[in-house]
């Protein structure tokens, strides 16, 4: 019986000194002293995803600037939604690493589910899912990405580690809205 009594005394003391109340309040007060967790996107900050992120496709070049893509069409064969179209052609002027290059390489982003099978299938690591994720637009014209567009290096280089928040500027021009991140000014994620 004595044990039960002691427990009751313990509970009683807890109630008298408002332990639960202090516990709760400390979390609330903690938020007061910690900085804001809201990302000031798009005009001040932008989230730079990790390397493993799968965003917009990018077509890579080798160190000599030659296209890595040999238009083998394995990406389009591997694609579960059949959103990639590749038409090869012959070009031995040194445009690509082989004399077989892509005449057409396009991806329909509306159908793409960013599964990354295309990069797995690629024998030359030409196609990678990059870290551009701002794909929304006000008409459907931007949903079809062509080779020329994808060959332009993306704003986040593949070597960049990612998983940080970068300082950004928001630019609204007639060409569209752009959020430009400054990769030299980064900070750890606030959460």
């Amino acid at each position, binding site marked *: 019986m004595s044990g039960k009594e002691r427990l009751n005394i313990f509970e009683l003391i807890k109630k008298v000194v408002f332990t639960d109340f202090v516990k709760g309040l400390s979390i609330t007060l903690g938020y007061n002293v910690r900085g804001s967790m809201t990302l000031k996107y798009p005009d001040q900050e932008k989230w730079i995803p990790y390397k493993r992120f799968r965003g917009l496709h990018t077509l890579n070049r080798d160190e000599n600037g030659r296209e890595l893509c*040999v*238009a*083998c*069409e*394995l990406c389009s*064969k591997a694609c579960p939604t059949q959103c990639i179209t590749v*038409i*090869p*052609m*012959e070009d*031995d002027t040194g445009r690509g690493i*082989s*004399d*077989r290059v892509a005449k057409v390489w396009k991806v329909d982003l509306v159908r793409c589910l960013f599964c990354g099978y295309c990069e797995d299938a690629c*024998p*030359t690591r030409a196609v990678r899912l990059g870290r551009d994720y701002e794909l929304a637009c006000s008409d459907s014209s931007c949903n079809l990405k062509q080779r020329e567009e994808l060959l332009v290096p993306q704003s986040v280089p593949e070597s960049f580690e990612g998983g940080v928040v970068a300082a950004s500027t928001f630019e609204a021009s007639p060409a569209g809205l752009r959020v430009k991140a400054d990769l030299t000014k980064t900070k750890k994620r606030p959460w």
Partner: protein
Amino acid sequence: MSTVKINGKEVTVKDGTLILDAARDAGFEIPTFCYQADLMGVGSCRMCLVEIEGQKKLQPSCITPVLHGMSIHTETPTVMSARASMLEFLLANHALDCPVCDKGGECELQDMVYKYGPHKGRHAEPKFKFQEKDYVLSPVIIKNSNRCVQCMKCVRVCGEVVGANVLGALGRGDHQEETSFLRSFLDCDQDGNCIEVCPVGCFMRLPYRYKTRPWDLKGKDTVCPYCATGCRMVIEERDGIVIRAKAQLGVGLNSETLCARGRFGFDFINSPERLTKPLVKRFGTLEPASWEEALGVIKDNFIAAGKNIGGIASARLTDEELYLFQKLFRSMLGSPNIDSSARWAPEAVEGFIKATGMDEGGASAFDCMESDTVLITGTHLSDENPVTDYIVRRISAGRAMNLVIASPRAMKLDSSASQIVRHNAAAEGHLLDAVTLSVYGGNVDKLRDVPGINRIKDARQDDLAGKAGCSADDIKAIARKLTGEGSVGLFAGTEFLRYPGSIPGLALLKNALKALGKKVTIIPVLDRANQRGAWEMGVHPGFGPGYSPVKERGMGCADMLEAASSGELQALYVVQSDIVAMHPDENFVRGALSGLKFLVVQDCFMSETARLANVVLPASSFAEKDGILTNQEGRAQIIRKLLPPPVKAKRDIDIIRAVGETFDRSFGPKNPVLVLDEIRKEVGMYGEVSLAFNNKRNVDNKLDLKEALVKPAGLAEGLNASGLETKLEPKTDEHPFLLATGNHLFHSGRLSRKSPTLIGLLKNAIVEISAEDASALGLMNGDKVRIKGRYYEAYATLHTRSGSKGGVAFIAENYDDVPVNRFFRRGEGVPRVSITKA
């Protein structure tokens, strides 16, 4: 018979059967690279190694025949590891550039490694490379030797089947490279059979290079639209453009082989010159119009012409279209004037049908080649029907038989012949008469009652031989072979139609041999895909469908043109036939057509004839329709639609029906399947023809589908084969060469001239004479020469051929720059020309 055990299963096979064939028959799979049923075994790839009990080493099953009592194992761990090791060695130096290779996705090496191979290689050394870059071997072949597996199939198919012998092997061991002599540019038949047999991406099509992946292609089974051999092939398209034609192992009578026309000549389908909308002539120029308007104009003018109307349909249309065409004329327009050839007289056609026994049903070329003596006459088989030439070469090499070739021009097949006879041009009849006379000399009693024997009975052998231009000994030798033991096969070509005076000679020889109790198989050798079908569908002024007699005999092409120039014929309906380019004497045709009140031309292209038309209707090519084609043997084969006709063009069957429907709404049947049903009902020959075929790769090469042969008609009594004679211009010193014509190896009619690849193989006209004549004239191969006839002269490149008979100049009918029909003048016979240095 030998009884052997394969994997414990007891099978009994013929003596001398290869272990490989026995195992495959028993249902066991053995992988191979170098084995092919038609080719000589070499046992070079070592993929087919099997274990035989009592023998220490594994044996190659593709060259080892079975022995009675053998016990063979094909799936033991030793065999499996041997296969994997073989593949590992092949991959040691294989380029492994599959992502770039055109064969990637349908490569036998890929499949084999996937199935049997080691999935890891142990060879870390740098790979041996023959060359850094692919090299172009011919206008249609590109080569990458780094991928070679040394199976030698290309070399063997080139020598044994095609007979070109331009490929060989350089080097030894794994440095052995199958290529042309010192990798020089190939001057061969350009048929690409080396590409088709190559199991890897070593030989590749140049026009197909880097266009697509095999899994993107959508294909349909079809039949080659050029000559009448009737080769089965598959045409494949991507995004509405046909980019490849291929033949499949063991499918159709051609198996994997095709000629340059078939394999590379399909691209006229994609031509930007295709007609896409109807054109109607207004104030002297052809202007685009709607179908309703064009059909309205046709109806008004056909009604105005009444019965004075004629029709010429191309022998490349399907049987259904041709049947409906003759039905349109005979039952709807009430006119008997229809023809399917702009080149040949109707009487010659009737005589030829009778002489070759086409009305007695189809005959298989394989059966013909089973004969003990085969005579090839009236055709330049190697150029006109290359795949028939391959069949003859392959079979004649494999068995003991006599092969006699009689032709004025030397040909590739001569090397397979046991006797070659060079006779004068247009003298096939004299040659055959001389042979028959020689046969008659020894068998007077048996041959006394043969119809027509009286014509030659009293002739002198020397006269006939002299007219034929060959020695009496040659003729006796042929006669001896034909009358020897066994059966006789004859290949009779289009020269008989070109020079109709030869037809009675052919008929007489056939009858004489039959009277001697011999089995005679005749294969007519024709040069248009559905020429035989056109005749059997009754597109001929002298007989109806199935060679049935007609009530009223109509006019053939030449008579129609004659009637047109005299104003008697008012309207002409021409379907896909270019009569201006094909009928002898172009000026006469142009004059006649301008005398017409109304000319309708239905064609894929703006042909010379279409330019003169009042209404031009856009028609479709073979890739755009369903139907059946009947080849020269009488084999009915299906073609399937791959693409829709371009823009507003329509299928020919729909156009012909639409023209009929302007007169009677019920004209039909309404679709090709129903037309075929009607053909089966109306034309007894086609009643039970089987259209089924095996389109699976078939390693046994069972090619001869006899159920597809048409049945005997038994109606040919009404054929009018009278008045057959060959007219030649008299020989003068001014014009020493007799002008021969036909098709070039790379072309067939004018249709193939719309194919960019085939034009790339042969752009400008050539004239061919024998090397002896050329050296007598001081001319060299490749010289630019002037060809002068009495009415026309032209310039062309000289091609000399050694071994041809002198006094013959050959210009193919295909060239638009030297239209050979301009040398002809109506009523004056086969022209003679002179050749001088330009």
